[in-house]
């Protein structure tokens, strides 16, 4: 009889501890959202390297919320402690009202510890290190005017800030929402962890989703704002850039930006460090590690833990819907201002600049540059805008880091 009772108690214990009892309806909705993201990542190949880890983190945290649980300490009397644990195991003691209690530690969940890299702002600069080691700034050095387009595409950030303020967000939350317009995942995460960590899940997912949707969002805006003649412009070949220039470039940028905007130094500094590793030609092993192993490891940690912030209780709120809507506006505005400034450059240069390269100013390297190439080739199959668009594209990375520095300086 006792055996059956023990068996029944065990069954009841397993059932009450299972997700069938502990999860609420919001967790199930988030599990469905994670499955949609799986579909987009695997079937549609929308930014799969990031969307897949994010979706998996989201799935896991909604199945087992304690995976993000913070560590804590409970006070237990010696009697309770021995009853529960079998011994006091050398726990530290605290005396309250003359009674001795043991400090029994409860360790945090796996993702809690991995998430510290996001919370403390460690992962985004490390991602930038890898991005820097993979980026060729040659097109930007050959045509530094591309910086104008990289700056123009950041206007969306500040316009969206206004929208967010009027939708009821605090100024810090509005700044974090606006940064989605920079179309740069690590920058968005970095700024959000500093300004509005409570919105991290929604903002990261919106930022990466819109980056993945660049080929769908940008072309209609580009076509609407340009004429057929403008889109068909064939640009002159860029001048070759010497190795010396490529070495001096990251050093110059990091000195200038770190002095003028110290808040942008972690992002820009690591970006330029990665680039210097690559361009110096004397640190091939380090450059390859930054581009591959380190980048991949950080991507896995960043993706899963950012996804794990999207619990049902956090994510399913009115603010998420507002953030997703504002993110789309930020992204569209950034693309539109890039193209409009491209048109201005087209006029000023007497038709030598194809305005389509302006939309690449919204970071999202190299996807936005590919979109400029593709839309340009629709008008003129012999037109190759890719390298010209890479200039504004990498300028956009620097531009969004500068915009992040401004937001952090003013709002943090």
């Amino acid at each position, binding site marked *: 009889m006792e055996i059956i009772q023990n068996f029944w108690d065990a069954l009841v214990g397993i059932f009450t501890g299972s997700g069938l009892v502990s999860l609420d309806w919001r967790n199930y909705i988030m599990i469905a959202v994670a499955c949609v993201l799986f579909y987009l990542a695997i079937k549609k190949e929308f930014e799969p390297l990031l969307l897949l880890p994010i979706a998996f983190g989201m799935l896991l945290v909604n199945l087992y919320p304690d995976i993000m649980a913070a560590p804590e300490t409970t006070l237990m009397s010696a009697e309770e402690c021995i009853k529960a644990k079998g011994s006091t195991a050398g726990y530290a003691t605290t005396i309250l009202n003359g009674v001795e209690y043991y400090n029994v530690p409860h360790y945090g969940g796996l993702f809690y510890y991995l998430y510290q890299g996001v919370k403390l702002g460690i992962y985004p600069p490390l991602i930038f290190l890898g991005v820097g080691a993979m980026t060729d700034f040659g097109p930007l050095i050959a045509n530094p005017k591309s910086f104008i387009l990289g700056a123009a595409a950041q206007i969306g950030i500040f316009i969206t800030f206004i929208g967010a303020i*009027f939708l009821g967000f605090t100024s810090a939350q509005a700044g974090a929402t606006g940064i989605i317009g920079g179309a740069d995942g690590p920058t968005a995460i970095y700024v959000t962890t500093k300004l509005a960590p409570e919105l991290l899940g929604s903002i990261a997912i919106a930022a990466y989703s819109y980056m993945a949707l660049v080929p769908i969002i940008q072309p209609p805006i580009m076509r609407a704002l340009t004429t057929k003649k403008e889109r068909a412009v064939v640009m002159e070949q860029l001048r070759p850039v*010497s190795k010396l220039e490529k070495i001096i470039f990251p050093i110059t940028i990091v000195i200038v930006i770190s002095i003028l905007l110290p808040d942008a130094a972690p992002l820009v500094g690591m970006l330029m460090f990665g680039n210097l590793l690559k361009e110096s030609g004397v640190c091939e092993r380090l450059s390859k590690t930054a581009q591959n192993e380190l980048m991949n490891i950080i991507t896995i940690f960043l993706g899963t833990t950012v996804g794990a912030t999207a619990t049902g209780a956090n994510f399913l709120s009115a603010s998420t819907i507002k953030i997703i809507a504002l993110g789309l506006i930020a992204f569209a505005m950034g693309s539109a201002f890039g193209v409009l400034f491209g048109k201005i450059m087209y006029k000023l240069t007497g038709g030598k600049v194809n305005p389509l390269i302006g939309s690449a100013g919204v970071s999202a390297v190299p996807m936005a540059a590919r979109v400029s190439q593709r839309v340009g080739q629709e008008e003129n199959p012999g037109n190759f805008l890719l390298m010209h668009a890479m200039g504004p594209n990498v300028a956009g990375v620097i531009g969004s880091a500068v915009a992040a520095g401004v937001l952090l300086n003013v709002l943090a």
Partner: protein
Amino acid sequence: MDLMSKFTISASMLLTGFVIVFAVLFFLIFLIWLMGKVVTGAQNKAASRKAAKVAKEAQESTYKQPEKAAQPKLEAVKAVNPDGVSDELVAVISAAVYGMYGSSEKVKIKSIKKSKSRSAWANAGVLNNTRPF
């Protein structure tokens, strides 16, 4: 936050962001442009100095060697190289032709010219290679 303070904070952020981002990036444009000028200028200077040195050495060696020995060599290069194509390129193309036909067939390269524009075949090739983008 009342309407007036919302308006104030929005306007000041837009102005601050716009001005600082453009000012920093315009400053960078100037710096990169300046860097390009200085580095390219210095490298051109070094290259022309090196070219002058090589020319001077060649001139000196021409004076030292008998004229008969120097002339056929120059003519041979000129015959294959009328269009400003470098000697290295001529060597590469010749090696490729030799690699294709071998010594069994008698093949003669009569001229190598630079194409003024990209041919339809070259265009198709570039298009094919950049299609994934």
